[in-house]
């Protein structure tokens, strides 16, 4: 039995998603089938679709900060401030600022800023004396987390986790570890993405024949459907407040859930094609570490991005872990609503499901008109939300290029 000092809980959530700028708005839209994917035009690439956020950046940033900072930094600042407010946290009073850590997962960082700078340079015949002195602070890998510390005068540790599309989960896991190690008393952890601001990601996925298209943008992201044709590139962010249970109790915090277990590993088999054996292994180890069996998992939020091969392989991995005895294990997918929020994906998808502990509802995966038989998992919740009864444990999958896998399990908080 773990002591309260060895238990870490989620006490606040801040987010911006293509279909919501708060957990309540996001959750409502996930339960009501509201997509956040819209038509989009990006430099050089042209017309496409994307999941874009519309948060009020000036709520927490001055106009100068917005001018000199990055979009990823701005998303991070918005999410952290919203998470602090949601947690009812009083910095200085509840925690000294040098005991606060910021740990943010990113798929990549610096592409947007570099593309912008080269575009500006093109107006000056590519003379490098016109290259901005802000380029370095904008493109250092720790920029999004560092901008948060500047915004809030936090003097504890900060860094980002480069973990492709497993980064959102890994950001939270790292926050948990830092709290348990005693490096910090409270962690602001999760993931962010500014990917749609770069043409390169669209062009690269198009070259890879993995960029989604559909005449109706809201139907373009369609994991598990026979007509799926790739990824919708999206931006967003989700940050959770992580505290030790004893400290959360002491300040009377609202508790969304308790971190139960996790695992991260590597496929070591291909740069982009996922490996279902390693994904299954990652899920199994996370479940073991949570001191659970697969039957204890009530909800699996899939990573599935809408690529023909990736979705099938994740379903193979899930089927290898969850057999027919798991008759109360529901499976859903959030990217069908918001596209692929890259570094934010894991964190956003987890927090969008946390309310299931309270309402017992599993949001669906939408846009499945004809289910791919290779993706036919028993508990798949298609197109309409499902009244699932009591949800005690959520397993969140996040996988990324270079074969990085991260599985995180959160359980209902029981005092």
């Amino acid at each position, binding site marked *: 039995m773990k002591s309260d000092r060895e238990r870490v809980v989620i006490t606040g959530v801040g987010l911006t998603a293509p279909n919501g700028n708060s957990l309540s708005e996001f959750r409502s839209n996930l339960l009501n089938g509201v997509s956040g994917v819209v038509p989009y035009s990006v430099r050089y690439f042209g017309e496409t679709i994307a999941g874009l956020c519309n948060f009020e950046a000036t709520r927490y940033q001055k106009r100068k900060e917005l001018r*000199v900072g990055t979009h990823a930094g701005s998303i991070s600042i918005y999410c952290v401030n919203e998470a602090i407010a949601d947690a009812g946290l009083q910095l200085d009073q509840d925690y000294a600022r040098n005991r606060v850590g910021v740990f943010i997962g990113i798929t990549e960082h610096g592409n947007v800023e570099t593309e912008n700078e080269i575009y500006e340079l093109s107006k000056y015949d590519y003379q490098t004396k016109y290259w901005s*002195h802000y380029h370095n602070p904008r493109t250092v890998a720790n920029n999004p987390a560092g901008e948060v510390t500047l915004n809030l005068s936090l003097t504890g540790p900060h860094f980002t986790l480069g973990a492709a599309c497993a980064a959102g989960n890994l950001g939270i896991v790292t926050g948990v570890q830092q709290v348990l190690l005693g490096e910090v008393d409270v962690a602001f952890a999760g993931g962010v993405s500014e990917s749609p601001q770069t043409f390169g990601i669209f062009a690269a996925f198009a070259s890879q024949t993995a960029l989604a298209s559909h005449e109706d943008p809201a139907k373009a992201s369609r994991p598990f459907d026979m007509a799926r044709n790739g990824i919708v590139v999206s931006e967003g962010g989700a940050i959770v407040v992580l505290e030790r249970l004893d400290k959360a109790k002491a300040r009377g915090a609202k508790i969304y859930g308790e971190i139960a277990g996790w695992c991260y590993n590597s496929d070591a088999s291909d740069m982009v094609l996922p490996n279902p054996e390693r994904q299954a292994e990652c899920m199994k180890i996370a479940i073991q570490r949570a001191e659970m069996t697969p039957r204890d998992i009530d909800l699996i939020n899939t990573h599935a991005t809408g690529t023909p091969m990736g979705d099938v392989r994740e379903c193979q991995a899930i089927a290898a872990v969850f057999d027919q005895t798991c008759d109360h294990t529901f499976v859903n997918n959030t990217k069908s609503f918001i596209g692929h929020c890259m570094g934010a994906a894991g964190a956003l998808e987890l927090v969008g499901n946390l309310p299931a502990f309270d309402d017992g509802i599993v949001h669906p995966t939408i846009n499945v008109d004809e289910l791919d038989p290779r993706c036919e998992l028993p508990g798949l919740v298609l197109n309409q939300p499902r009244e699932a009864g009591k949800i005690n444990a959520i397993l969140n999958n996040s996988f990324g290029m270079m074969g990085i896998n991260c599985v995180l399990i959160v359980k209902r908080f029981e005092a």
Partner: protein
Amino acid sequence: MTRKEIFDALIEIVTEINPDEDWSTLTADESLRGKLESMDFLDVVMEIRKRYGIEVPEADYGKLGTMNSCVDYLFPKLSVK
């Protein structure tokens, strides 16, 4: 450009650099450097380069201390433009 036009152009530049600051009350003898962070000042130098093609070498940064000194420095270079 006249001295007045140079002054107004500088106000426009610093307003873009830091739009949160009220620059309308800045007097000609007030310290410009005192109201700008180090990176902001480099922005001023960059904007002068971009807008007018004028290079301000680092050795001359000290001559851009106040609005008046900025105008003094830039006037001979811009009066013919």
